[in-house]
């Protein structure tokens, strides 16, 4: 978490935070998870604060999750998207953000197709900024909710063996997760064809394999990434069928496993591509659990930024 010269705190990237921050955030997320199980799912912690959700790229779960998180903390929320805002009239991000802050917003949650947009924003606005996914750069709250899910389900993070499967190259989720897992002492194995791996990825402290079978034998957590269908046209791989054959969690692969790993997916799933539909049904509870965890983790992040333990 960075703090700027005006004392505003931001969450821009997992690269900026350390292990202690991650662990203490996951601890407090546990308390926030409890709030969502109450008959009245709301606490007054951020009463009187205003949070703007600036989602300039399509998103369902992240946007709703941030909105719910803010509402459960009693903050006021303004949400807007590209099509319904002046951005569709050609207003720049800078002007949009400045307008928001002029109306007295305390934090901006931003999703943008360009890497680094949230960081740019911190130089323009006088409020906190949360990165909700920027281009192919990072998606820090996704990594935090994934770690939360692993920790709650498996009891620990240190020494955990996590295999991440799929289009690592285009995935901000993978980039954030790799760094977060490294920081808390988990081991990461990437499973993908070379064409879906970024250059020099080994330097991030991960192992690489082309064999899903090998990964399945080894891992405690199997993290499947969404195959972005438009990538087939970029000829990153021959066909979806080919991908599924080699890297898909198919029924035979799943059934043959003696020790079944925790299967996770950031959503939305492409049933029949990275995971066979019947297997998806079987492991669905974990994946919906990730969604539930998302609200708790984002409550913890917003509270940390705006309620803050700085002082």
């Amino acid at each position, binding site marked *: 978490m960075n703090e700027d010269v005006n004392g505003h705190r931001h969450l821009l990237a997992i690269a900026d935070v350390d292990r202690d921050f991650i662990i203490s955030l996951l*601890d407090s997320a546990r308390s926030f998870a409890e709030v969502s199980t*109450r*008959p009245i799912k709301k606490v007054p912690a951020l009463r009187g604060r205003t949070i703007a959700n600036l989602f300039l790229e399509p998103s369902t779960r992240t946007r709703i999750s941030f909105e719910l998180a803010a509402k459960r903390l009693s903050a006021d929320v303004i949400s807007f998207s590209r099509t319904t805002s002046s951005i569709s009239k050609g207003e720049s991000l800078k002007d949009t953000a400045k307008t928001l802050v002029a109306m007295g917003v305390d934090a901006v949650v931003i999703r943008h197709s360009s890497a680094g947009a949230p960081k740019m924003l911190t130089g323009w606005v006088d409020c906190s900024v949360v990165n909700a996914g920027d281009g192919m750069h990072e998606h820090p709250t996704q990594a935090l909710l994934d770690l939360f899910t692993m920790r709650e389900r498996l009891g620990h993070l240190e020494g955990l063996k996590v295999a991440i499967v799929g289009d690592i190259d285009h995935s901000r989720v993978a980039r954030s997760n790799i760094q977060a897992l490294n920081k808390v002492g988990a081991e990461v194995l990437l499973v993908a064809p070379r064409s879906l791996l970024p250059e020099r990825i080994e330097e991030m402290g991960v192992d690489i394999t082309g064999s899903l079978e090998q990964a399945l034998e080894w891992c405690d957590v199997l993290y499947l990434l969404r195959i972005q269908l438009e990538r087939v046209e970029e000829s990153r791989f021959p066909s979806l069928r080919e991908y599924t054959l080699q890297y898909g969690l198919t029924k035979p692969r799943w059934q043959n496993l003696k020790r079944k790993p925790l299967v996770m997916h950031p959503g939305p799933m492409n049933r029949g591509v990275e995971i066979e539909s019947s297997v998806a049904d079987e492991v669905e509870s974990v994946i919906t659990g990730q969604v539930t965890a998302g609200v708790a983790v984002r409550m913890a992040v917003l*509270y940390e930024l705006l*309620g803050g*333990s700085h002082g």
Partner: protein
Amino acid sequence: MAFEARARVLDTEDLSRIIRRIAHEILERSKGSDDLALVGIRTRGVFLARRLGKMIEEIEGKPVAVGALDISLYRDDVATRGASSIGVTEIDLDTNDKKVVVVDDVLYTGRTIRAAMDAIMDFGRPQVIQLAVLVDRGHREVPIRADYVGKNVPTSGNEKVKVSLEEIDGVDMVEIGEER
């Protein structure tokens, strides 16, 4: 800043006598332990609530529900003071129509108890909410008073009351002194 003790106002024996007396008082006022629920405020209030619960169980021969409450998210000074780390609230009990006794170590400004009442109301509608504290040191800033008090300890504003409990501090005692 370090705490410098000037006097010990309660020791181990005093504490166990107080727990026993308050347990009896609660039972007398509530006419038994039916519908009773004890809710301790984190951190030390939780241990006191558990001790009271154990004592009531010994007297009545049946268990009484004990919960833990973290009021950080209900504080009225988050903006100015900043929040500390947040503990988990464990109220696995149905508070509807229950006689809830809030338990805390020190009653001072009353703001913590105000926050605790807000929190409890979010869990249901108790028949009655009462307050038990180990030490009442005065200086209220809101109209709140305790129903059960271990000891009234008059203090000045710059004095501190330090409660130590066996469960986390290794020893039972209450001291009064200054921060230096």
